[in-house]
């Protein structure tokens, strides 16, 4: 620290720039390390020094994509609707991920959305509830892309669940490529509803409330982003 201080702030900035950072990070609210990043890091730690083959140097083998930077971006979107269900819609939330953290020279190779629930409430719920969920095609989840036109929200993913899993993964690589332009990064709308509107209408209000309550365990969403900085892979290509 003293050495860097003596070097001056200009030189410190150059040093961090060389490491791919705009400035020295000073985390204010450090989040827990996502398990996927720990797993990849620990696997790499087990490799003996010099074991990495040059052609694998800029590839994330664990995810089978090119890349040398893996980020987990936290969702910065807000809830639009949750709580007391009055309609078939249980949860409506905007998802927003700040893509300005990606540097100019980085090529995006993967973006995977993860939706986490704190527990599998269906497994712990009564058999009667599970039966009802199957009868009414369980829950329906949809992801819509946001555009500047209010009524032009393109449906990206639609999936129904017979059972609620601890986490759901969706490949959003192509969509996320567009988010590199700040004006086009308007995020997504996540909706979780009880089956279709018709099936929900047939449910007594109390039952609808119970079914929506089963997604109270909704925890968070995050985006795993893999990118490739060509500049930092030049050394290995030259050697090859």
């Amino acid at each position, binding site marked *: 620290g003293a050495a860097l201080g003596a070097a001056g702030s200009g030189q410190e900035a150059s040093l961090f720039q060389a490491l791919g950072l705009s400035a020295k*990070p000073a985390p204010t609210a450090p*989040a827990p390390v996502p398990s996927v990043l720990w797993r990849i890091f620990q696997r790499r730690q087990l490799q003996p020094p010099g074991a990495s083959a040059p052609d694998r*140097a800029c590839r994330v083998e664990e995810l089978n994509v090119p890349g040398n930077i*893996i980020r987990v971006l936290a969702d910065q979107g807000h809830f639009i609707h949750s709580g007391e269900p009055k309609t078939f819609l249980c949860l409506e939330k905007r998802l927003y991920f700040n893509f300005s953290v990606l540097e100019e020279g980085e090529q995006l190779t993967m973006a995977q959305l993860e939706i986490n629930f704190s527990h599998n409430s269906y497994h712990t719920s009564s058999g009667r509830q599970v039966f009802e969920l199957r009868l009414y095609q369980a829950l329906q989840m949809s992801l819509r892309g946001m555009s500047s036109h209010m009524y032009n929200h393109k449906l990206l993913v639609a999936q129904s669940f017979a059972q609620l899993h601890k986490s759901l993964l969706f490949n959003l690589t192509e969509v996320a490529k567009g988010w590199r332009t700040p004006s086009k990064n308007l995020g997504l709308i996540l909706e979780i509803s009880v089956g279709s509107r018709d099936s929900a209408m047939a449910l007594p209000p109390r039952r609808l409330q119970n079914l929506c309550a089963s997604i109270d365990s909704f925890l968070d969403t995050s985006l795993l982003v893999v990118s490739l900085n060509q500049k930092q892979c030049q050394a290995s290509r030259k050697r090859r």
Partner: protein
Amino acid sequence: SSYYTPVTPSNLCKPRRLYISFSDVGWENWIIAPQGYMANYCLGECPFPLTAELNSTNHAILQTMVHSLDPEGTPQPCCVPVRLSPISILYYDNHDNVVLRHYEDMVVDECGCR
């Protein structure tokens, strides 16, 4: 030959142990893991005649010859890293995101006279 001074094997160009601790450089609050790593460095002499063990280039071999004739005008070749390996670093970026980044050329595996 008048300038030839024998070099003991321990003084020859080779990797030396260097552990870089991220807390020593004041980076412990944003680097999550590792806390430090064995980076190593190169140190030692590149004497005439250069042997194959010193990972020398043809240019370095000739430079030692010229150095032996004119030690004041031509320096000996340098002892520098010739093979390095990468490490991965897990850290918080400027926006509190967790990042796992693969950094090339971080550990000195082999040194050579160049």
